[in-house]
């Protein structure tokens, strides 16, 4: 684990994957990993394999769907896309995340009293 890198918080990977698919349209696992790496500016320490665990979980909940296709450099790849229910879930999760983040922010900003 390199220095200056943060571990991915449990549960947040799902949200990241959902948002990525929402923003980028259908992507394969490699593409999702690249996008998250790019956005996080290399801050996140992500075992790319765990993306697939998240993908399977999301699929089982019916939030994403998958289809086999051919990647840009002609490789066989499974393309994932967000479903309508997934988009709804993303909206809920986003709100929830913002609320929690807001609380965390306020808590962490508390000055030492007394």
């Amino acid at each position, binding site marked *: 684990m390199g220095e200056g890198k943060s571990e991915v918080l449990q549960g947040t990977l799902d949200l990241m994957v959902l948002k990525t698919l929402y923003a980028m349209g259908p992507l394969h696992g*490699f593409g999702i990993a690249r996008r998250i790496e790019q956005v996080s500016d290399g801050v996140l320490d992500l*075992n*790319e*394999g765990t993306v697939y665990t998240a993908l399977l979980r999301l699929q089982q909940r019916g939030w994403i769907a998958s289809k086999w296709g051919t990647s840009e450099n002609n*490789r066989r790849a*499974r393309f994932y896309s967000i479903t309508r229910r997934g988009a709804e879930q993303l909206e809920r999760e986003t709100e929830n995340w913002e609320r929690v983040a807001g609380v965390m922010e306020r808590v962490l900003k508390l000055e030492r009293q007394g």
Partner: protein
Amino acid sequence: MRILRMLWSRVKGQAAQGREDEAFDVEVREHIAMLEERYTAQGMSARQAVKAARRQFGNITALKERQRAQRGILSPTEWWRDVRFGLRMLAKRPASNAAVVLALALGIGMNSAVFTFVNGILLRPPQGVSQSRKMIELWLKRPKKTGPQGYLPFNYPDYAYFRDHAKSVEGLLAFDGDGVDVIWNHAGSGQNLNVVAASGNFFSLLGVNAAMGRTLSVDDDRIDNPRQVVVLSYACWKDKMGADPGILGRTLMLDGEAFTVVGVAPAGFTGLMVATEPDMWAPLTAQEKFTHDKTRLTSRDDSWLIVAGKMHSAGDRKSVQAEMHVLAKQLGLAHPEEDEVPDAEVYAMTLMPGPFRGYVFAFTGLLMIVFVLVLLIACTNAASLLLARATGRAREMATRVALGAGPARLVRQMLVESLMLAGLAGGAGVAIAWAMSRLLMELKPGNLPIALEIPIDWRVVLFTVAVSVATGVVFGLAPALRASAAEPARVLREGSPTAGRKKARILNVLVAAQMAMCVVLLAGASLCVRSLMNANAIDPGFDTRHIALADLDPGSLGYTPEKVKDFYTRLLERVQRLPDVTSASYAASLPLGTSRQVTTAGKLLGNDPDAVPADVFRMEPRLLETMGIPLLRGRDLTAKEADGDKPDAVVINEYLAKRLWPGEDPLGKHLVLRGEKTRSEVVGVVKNGKYRTLGEGSVAAVFRGTLPPARTLVVRAAGDEREVLNEVRREVPAVDPLMTTTMVQTIGDFMALPLFPARATGWLLGVSGILAVVMTTIGLFGVIAYVVSQRTHEIGLRMALGARRADVLKLVIGQGLRLTGIGLAIGLCAALGAARLLAPVLYGIGANDPATMAAVAVGLAAIALTACYLPARKAMRVDPSVALRCE
């Protein structure tokens, strides 16, 4: 719902585990390859790139393991843990678990019993046939008719045409669907044997090899040179021929013709038709020797052959069907004189002829609905019990959630427990099914000439397992989902497992639903039992006591009419001289019997548009007296009138008299039976009776003479008709040693057949109804007792605040009765709808008989009141100080 969806996708995932593994392998391989490509492009060496890609991707094996576990539902160790834990939980409460298992076992067992019949009759291929999957049945379908009447067996010329031209099958065999009863004369006496005429390729196509000697061959069955040979069934050889080791080559005299035994069929092989057990098979072309029918092999009007075939090993039913359509069309073109061209339809071979399967399915389907209702009541019982128990376990669940168990984990734990209960019930259910199917067979009238074999085979076991699993899921799901919704914070804080409002609501719904189902079953059962009582009380128009019946057919010995007449006259004289006999006579067919002659009776010769449909019963003098049919006016036939070959005198029933000559005296009037060239004089009028079914309305009947050689001897006994029966049986060979009775029975045996539909439904529904009431009572009692135990604290508080015991009683009973009321209301509506389905089998009672419905409602309400009273009494005795302190 989300949990359900997860569960489902995991069940699906488990099924597709292997395929998914492969797909995931591809995905991972490609991902890593792309990573490598990227690193190489960034300037790494190939080796470095491989290493970096692996590092970036993480531990592949661990990932695959995780994916597998996430995908499916089966992780053996975890399941084993659940099972062990479940066993401990079951052992903790043996009594209530045993009750649940028993209730479920009864429900499952009844369904399995019905399925045993469906399997035995409809699904199981005939025994002893090799490659039964390749066997098909062929039926002719008349285009203008619907229902079973639209289907025809084959006549011989058509069968020969199909046999010689069909290319899509290895061969087509044919046999006489009814078989023929012949008299086997040996050692100076006669015995009845059932012979089935079968084509020469019958045994070879079915792949049935002889246990001794050989089976029939195509050479036996040559139309120009039929051989008089027979193959015995194993049972016939063993029971009727005394397992004679030298049977091969022996000559049997059948209906006076010599047939040589060439072989014995293997044990267990009873042919291809349900409920028949032929004694022997003879070549088709030799049929004339025992059917005495000279035109059967040439006539195109005589449909008597059931045709079956064996497909080529690579063949399928579709291609066979296609060819049969074509052959049927060609046959139609070859016979332009016939106005309808039947089509040929192909069915898979089972013991029930293809075209009739649908009707048997419909009947057993109805039975199954009843028993599924019983099972559902048992399920609601089990669900209520588990739900109530789950409250006691709320702390356990909350603790487990707090310790990190996910909802899926808890659902699984609960489901494992309910599946274990259901599994135990399923095991017991198979035993109950076995006992039940034996019992059902006992209901069958003894004179119904069928022999059913209803084994419990793998299909029955598979069915039972499926029903058990479904049952376990159905009654386990509600408690499981409740458990998964445990709120650890609240439960652990509050300490006492107070019932959530939601849970009480589920319980209430379950009890009301149970009550509703119980009403439907009980209403159906009461209607049937009452109709059974009515049916037993219906006056069939003759005396149903002290009558012995014996069927005789000297015609099958090839006797001349004179010899037949002589035999009957001498027999009657001897029987009438027996000490216990008050009177005796002959009839060709009896009212409510299985065979009848239908015609019309009018006043004009030729085509009379006002002719009335009527049943004809042929009789000798004194039959009316012997049967106890009251003669209202006029007189009986004389011996001379009965013996004449034209019906110059007839006796009619009141109804026909009223239809033909309303308000007039019918005596001395003349009527014309359809097809007769002369008029017949009405010499007597008898009381109306039942002629076809006990439930029928008014039917016209004509009693006339001219009997065929096949007759029933009707004997009225002064005392026990059974003794007379034995005496009659002894008298027959005394008159003619070659003769024997085809069937002897008392009038009670005879009446079992017309009473069968009402008796069978009455019994089945009666038993189901009683079960439903017992289970519902237990269910209601359990729920009310549970609610009381949950509310002990509240009741104590109320009493401390001044509530009297009567108020508490009202409170508890009021709750029970409210649920009962809702259930009764829904149930009565459903029962009114369901009763219509029963209407065809009900006698003398309307399908929505208000008295029955009211009685059911009042009875159930009373039972419900009792079920509530016991827990209510307990609630009344709550000591406020104790109740409040224990909190």
